[in-house]
């Protein structure tokens, strides 16, 4: 079996975000990391690999050249190889354009399963898994909190606001996972060393047969007009309780009543 894990390079949540003149995020401004949600998809893929003989797990990343560190990080979890799509024309691609690139990259790849995070921490669109599924004409099981595999049949628990639904599908398919699915491992020292020599194929748009006119800022189907920092919030009143609880409770009740919450 062959599993693909799409992984994204994202700015650290704590990093200050800088918006460039073209309204895209300046991806060189702060520290960048592997999208946290993609650690769960990698973990899930690795667990399948460990219990299923002959399984290969490949990372797929669309990103600038610097994303190679992210790809190596992904490889350090024990993956077998990676594909990185890098091309200047990709800059500024939205969710749909990203899905077009990932789909084109996979058109000539063999795979049974794509496992990915349900959300990237910067865009937070959650759209890429479903859009990729549409381009590849595959079923998508998103927001999965538990995944079982029986031969070619996938059984997934999809998290809902009030519980979960169980969905069944055949492979090939796309699965996007939520945090509850597993507890990701830390890369071992051996894994980190091995990652340096794992096969990493870097391809440009021509190599995946995609025209530059289908991707990037100008060919995305969404456009950002402005992006401004939210004014910092001012801390309000702070009441010190005296240890009895009633002082704090009374003051808070007054505050809530003043705001008509009670």
């Amino acid at each position, binding site marked *: 079996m062959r599993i693909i894990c799409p992984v994204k390079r994202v700015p650290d949540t704590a990093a200050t975000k800088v918006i460039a003149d073209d309204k895209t995020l300046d991806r060189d401004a702060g520290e960048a990391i592997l999208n946290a949600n993609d650690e769960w998809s990698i973990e899930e893929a690795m667990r399948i690999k460990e219990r299923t003989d002959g399984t290969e797990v490949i990372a797929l990343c669309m990103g600038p050249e610097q994303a190679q560190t992210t790809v190596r990080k992904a490889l350090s979890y024990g993956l077998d190889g990676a594909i990185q799509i890098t091309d200047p024309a990709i800059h500024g691609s939205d969710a749909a354009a990203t899905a077009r690139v990932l789909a084109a990259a996979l058109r000539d790849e063999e795979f049974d399963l794509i496992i990915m995070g349900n959300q990237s921490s910067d865009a937070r669109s959650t759209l890429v898994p479903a859009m990729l599924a549409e381009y590849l004409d595959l079923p998508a099981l998103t927001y999965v909190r538990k995944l079982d595999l029986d031969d070619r049949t996938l059984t997934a628990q999809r998290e809902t606001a009030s519980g979960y639904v169980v969905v069944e599908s055949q492979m090939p398919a796309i699965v996007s996972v939520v*945090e509850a699915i597993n507890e990701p491992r830390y890369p071992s020292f051996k894994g980190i060393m091995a990652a340096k020599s794992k096969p990493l194929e870097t391809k440009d748009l021509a190599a995946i047969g995609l025209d530059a006119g289908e991707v990037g800022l100008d060919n995305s189907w969404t456009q950002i*007009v402005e992006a401004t920092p939210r004014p910092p919030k001012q801390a309000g*009143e702070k009441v010190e309780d005296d240890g009895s609880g009633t002082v704090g409770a009374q003051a808070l009740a007054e505050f809530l009543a003043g705001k008509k919450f009670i």
Partner: protein
Amino acid sequence: MPNILVLVEHDAGTPRKVTNQILTAARGLGADISAAVFGEGAGNAADALGGYGAAKVFVWDSPDAHGYATETQVAALEQAIAQSGASIVLAAADPFTSDVVARTAIRLKGGVVTDANDLELDGDRVLVTKDIFGGEMTSKCFAKGEGPQFITVKPNAFTAEEGGGGSPEVVSLDISLDDKAKRAKVVDVVEAESGGRPEMTEASIICAGGRGLGDEKGFELIEQLADALGAAVGASRAATDAGWYPHQHQIGQTGKTVSPQLYIGSGISGAIQHRAGMQTSQTIVAINKDAEAPIFSIADFGVVGDLYKVLPPLIEEINKRK
């Protein structure tokens, strides 16, 4: 006048609050409004939707809508868009609905803007105001594909107000599904015990608990506070990771993003990843025994104290004043 189609969220034909809010927003844009409602009981929704401004309602009353993952509804939405001639599609920012919107948009080559907080008309375009980077910034953007503009709207971004139509024209959709649309089948639906509390993303008040609760039992206190206020219950990752409360209640970067009118955090320090899911709440209250906890820097009101001492008399006081 723009032609807007609203994709309806409903429970057995009763439209959810978020749909009424979106219909109200569509009226605010001075649009011709139709609605698309899929699933069992869909037909019962028409009059209620008319009461919020839908002049036409496209109905697909079939168990197939929720009996399969996403793709059956994609087929229906595609039909409804074609028949309505809509150039703008508004839907709730709900995970499963977003999947339907995402796939439909790819089919029709339309752009998708998610999580709108506000909408304004700019020529034929809808300019969307939304939070980005977990509320660190706000942005204005629009969809510009050759297909319709698809926009998902956050619950509670708008206040629902009845108005407009009356009895809408009802169009029954005839959807023929190929095997492909049925390739991911729903085999079971499991509802967790909600205790009658509202869903977190739709609630106007959220009471959240964190590691400071000390154990699973601590959440009983948070639930009592929530019930006194008619609120939903949320949790920090420390609490969901420990298994004290289910993951779907997690607020933050890797959980849900919420912006209720009131957020009350008890025993939560306010780590940046938690703030990324709640800092746009209108009023923030924190109860924490550490006066230096970062949550206080964004709290409109803070109580420095032991939550086990403060919450019981607070709950009592709220119940007394009701």
